[in-house]
């Protein structure tokens, strides 16, 4: 296995197109445990962290741009970003320990393709887009389209994610992410729920997005819950409909972390709570951002 650290996106894409068994990495917090578990090593490991735009967090007034290899600690320590997207910052901040946070990236969390990846529902509800570089230039995919199954991506072998774009949060909008794990730190989600709500001037819900982690082969949106919320003000009846839709959207597995029935039930509870937090935050952000 050969280690290379290109200093530009072009250099990285040309490395990937000329070496068929090359693999990109950022923090290696998924890659190393997988190699240790016996996954075949690539011939070339391409370190993305020495490319400037891959390790930066910027705001151009219209949108945030987060380099795909940026350590999640840099994101959660960015006060302006965390204030605008507390849900996404919390989700990113749940990944592992401080040691892991100083290495783990949003690009790696997404492209590892785990259904339990914490940052993914939070990126999805915020409409995050992935800027993908390949031999023929760049293309833009919705984050929700990137993972097609466990460990399966809509990227070609010679493509990688350069950065994520997230539009500035509109007025009266809030996001939230909650996860259930058997302990408070250092475990993988049994269920994760990301929500985002935009309120109309009269306080009713104008837009809603809900996405779940760890309950299906990929992160899933819950359109029935979103439809139940839009045009309404949250009350017990509507929140019960949200919970029922979330449980219904699950296609979970039985494993040591939780049974199918448990995951379904917890998905409903977390969905409801995440929506409530998002509404509360939207109310607080009554003016502009």
């Amino acid at each position, binding site marked *: 296995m050969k*280690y290379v650290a290109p200093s530009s996106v072009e250099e990285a894409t040309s490395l990937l197109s000329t070496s068929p068994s090359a693999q990109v990495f950022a923090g*290696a917090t998924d890659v190393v445990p997988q190699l240790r578990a016996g996954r075949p090593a690539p011939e070339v490991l391409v370190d993305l962290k020495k490319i400037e735009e891959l390790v930066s967090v910027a705001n151009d007034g219209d949108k945030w741009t987060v380099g795909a290899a940026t350590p999640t600690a840099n994101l959660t320590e960015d006060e302006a970003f965390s204030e605008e997207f507390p849900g996404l910052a919390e989700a990113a901040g749940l990944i592992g*320990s401080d*040691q892991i946070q100083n*290495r783990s990236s949003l690009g790696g969390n997404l492209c590892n393709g785990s259904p339990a990846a914490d940052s993914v529902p939070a990126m999805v509800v915020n409409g995050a887009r992935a800027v993908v570089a390949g031999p023929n230039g760049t293309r833009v995919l919705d984050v929700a389209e990137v993972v097609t199954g466990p460990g399966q991506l809509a990227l070609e072998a010679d493509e990688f994610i350069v950065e994520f774009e997230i539009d500035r949060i509109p007025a009266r909008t809030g996001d939230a992410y909650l996860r259930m794990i058997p302990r408070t730190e250092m475990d993988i989600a049994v269920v994760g729920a990301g929500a985002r709500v935009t309120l109309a001037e009269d306080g009713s819900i104008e837009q809603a997005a809900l996405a779940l982690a760890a309950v299906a082969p990929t992160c899933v949106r819950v359109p029935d819950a979103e439809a139940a919320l839009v045009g309404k003000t949250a009350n017990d009846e509507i929140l019960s409909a949200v919970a029922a839709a979330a449980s219904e959207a699950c296609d979970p597995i039985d494993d040591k972390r939780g049974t199918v029935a448990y995951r379904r039930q917890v998905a409903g509870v977390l969905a409801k709570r995440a929506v409530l937090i998002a509404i509360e935050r939207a109310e607080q952000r009554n003016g502009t951002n």
Partner: protein
Amino acid sequence: MARTHVTTVVNGDETEFLTEDSTSLLNALRDEVGLTGAKEGCGTGDCGACSVMVDDKVTCACLVFAPEVDGSTILTVEGLADSGELHPLQQCFLEGAALQCGICTPGFLISAKALLDRNPDPTETEIRYALAGNLCRCTGYDKIIRAVQEAAREMRGQ
């Protein structure tokens, strides 16, 4: 296989070593540089026994490929003491019996140092979160938490 030449500053000293690209920073430190303070408990990022600082950020040396640190500055537990004088964290761990077998201790000391560098007056909860990536099978953690609190107090001059 050709070995890669890596130049770093380890514990204040310019250090060069040769390594295979697939070698972890942990194994390079232990086998090439001769610093065996950082330990391998799991090799997969779970236990924190291998914690070191790379460019002032605490990280698991078992998850870093050795060639990545070319040009970086590294601090291991061997670099904590200052000309033979133990770091307050080390002294408080000793006095507070915050270790038994000692395997986890180098990692805890580095994580605790990383915490106190950015937050000289952490609450107990903040200490517990900051040390959540370090496992100890012996002490039950309480004595470790107390030792960090005591060291923080001393370092603040209280």
